[in-house]
């Protein structure tokens, strides 16, 4: 058990250092900006001030637009979190079966169209895909499932939640990458000796190959896709008018509101790092020989 704790401690320290590094990078960019914004202050003192505000999580008021950052960022963070986790779940739900199916079936009659479909779906540009889905849904069900549109019927409320998650999960080429990784890893593991050996003892192929073939690649790729999914969220939130961090970032980019952007970057880095910690812990659990 001690090794487990050691890993967690190591990861937390690593995250702490990285977050400081990120805020230093943001601060540097902030200073390089052409100087017509106030509140830049000079050198290290203002950097420490920025760090204090970031780490104590109350970000004060944005100098540029005068809105209280805390009140708008946290609900947005909650929504983006839902969107990201949902999208991850959806792409897993679809990619893993296709991956296993095409690994076992190999390149025969059935598996070819399926993996081609996953390629096509994940190559559709996310913004078009969003509108397409919106158009189709509104033509057939009659409501326009935009988050704030008070259209009639309970259904649109649920749909308004589900659609952006579905679109972000399917698009943003996460599915085709997971399918390709699982297919190659599973192929490699199935041809190893220890799977043949366990088959000789009567275990099924999937049971003996699942450990290294599916679980480990899955864990390592899913959590490393978090930054890409947050990136994709910026666009999906814009399409579906979903009140997340992405849309907030888009708004503050339009009216040049740098402090809000820094806070958003800080929170998304936190999300990514939490994902990384979970990934390393799970990987250690699955593959204890490493440490």
């Amino acid at each position: 058990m001690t090794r487990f704790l050691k890993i967690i401690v190591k990861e937390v320290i690593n995250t702490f250092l990285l977050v400081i590094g990120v805020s230093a990078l943001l601060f540097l960019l902030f200073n390089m900006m052409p100087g017509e914004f106030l509140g830049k202050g000079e050198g290290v003192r203002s950097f420490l001030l920025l760090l204090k505000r970031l780490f104590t999580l109350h970000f004060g008021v944005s100098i540029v637009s005068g809105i209280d950052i805390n009140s708008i960022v946290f609900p947005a963070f909650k929504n983006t979190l839902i969107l990201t986790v949902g999208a991850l779940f959806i792409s897993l739900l679809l990619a893993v079966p296709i991956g296993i199916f095409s690994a076992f079936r190999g390149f025969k009659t059935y598996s070819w169209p399926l993996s081609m479909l996953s390629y096509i779906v994940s190559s559709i540009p996310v913004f078009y895909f969003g509108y397409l889905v919106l158009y189709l849904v509104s033509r057939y069900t009659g409501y326009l499932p935009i988050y704030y549109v008070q259209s009639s019927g309970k259904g649109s409320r649920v749909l308004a939640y589900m659609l952006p998650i579905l679109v972000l999960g399917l698009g943003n080429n996460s599915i085709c990458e997971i399918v390709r990784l699982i297919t190659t890893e599973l192929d490699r593991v199935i041809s190893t000796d220890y799977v043949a050996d366990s088959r000789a003892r009567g275990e099924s192929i999937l049971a003996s190959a699942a450990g290294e073939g599916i679980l480990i690649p899955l864990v390592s790729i899913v959590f490393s896709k978090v930054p890409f999914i947050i990136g994709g969220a910026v666009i999906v939130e814009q399409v579906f008018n979903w009140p997340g961090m992405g849309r907030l970032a888009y708004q503050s980019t339009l009216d040049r509101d740098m402090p809000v952007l820094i806070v958003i970057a800080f929170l998304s880095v936190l999300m990514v790092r939490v994902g990384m910690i979970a990934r390393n812990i799970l990987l250690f659990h699955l593959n204890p020989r490493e440490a």
Partner: protein
Amino acid sequence: MKRFYYEEEQVDVEEFHVPIYRRASVRDVVSIGFGLFVVAYLFIFYFISITNTFIQNPMDVHIGQMFQRPSFEHLFGTDFLGRDIFSRIVKGTEAFFVPGLLSIVISTSFGLLFGIVTGFYPKILSRIIFYFLNVIDSIPRLILILIIIVLFRPSIYLIMVFAGITSIPKVTVYIQSKVEILKNQRFIEAGKALGLSPGSIILKHIVWLSAKSVLIIHATLGMGEAVLIETSLSYLGFGVQEPDPSWGNMVAMGIDFFFQGRLWLSTIPAVVILTTIMGLYLLGDGLNSIYNEKVSR
């Protein structure tokens, strides 16, 4: 009963020899063929838009001919201002082609450099390099680009420089794992025993023979990402502004007419984006399976 049919080629025994070149499987041929087709039309479009030899000028407006069906004269029909969609798509490649190449060059060269350095000198130096790479890696790419847009109001070139920088960690990890595997292979030691200088071992064996495949695959995937970034940005309105065409903002403009039932205005650029990205990914995938296949046989 006729499900599996195996037929043996007639060949006379003497001259039969194992074919040295490896015939790629059907799947590789299809994906590489489609990929090359995509790369070809990208180059052609770019060449046309540079030399400005358009049949229909993408910029001039014909109020009379709005929303025309695809006809011989306008291959993809005309948009809401009567401008020819096909030539606008051709001009749209100009927006991401050179910046894309720029981002690939940056990410590949620095990735290769850092990959080899961390691969061969694992101790402190690689820990520092990996720290900085992790810093860059943990910021979502699009948010970093938004920040840069706010700070510098950049052109697409600077955006692509930063896009290149953000994909350096991916290449570094690729190269480092390759170096890690090759380092304890015997032929590095054999090279040293033969008397090859360490520099030539690294350059010839690792970079040229083994890492070349990884870099080419990354280049195709990198170009695909560059297309995605440019189109998303111009959809959000930060990339290429309205009169000049970019696939992203063509889709954005088409959305307004989407719900009036005129779908094809934004569908055509979206389909072009789709084929480009898919083509580049399939090219990378096909090359990947051919290069690895040759070693593993």
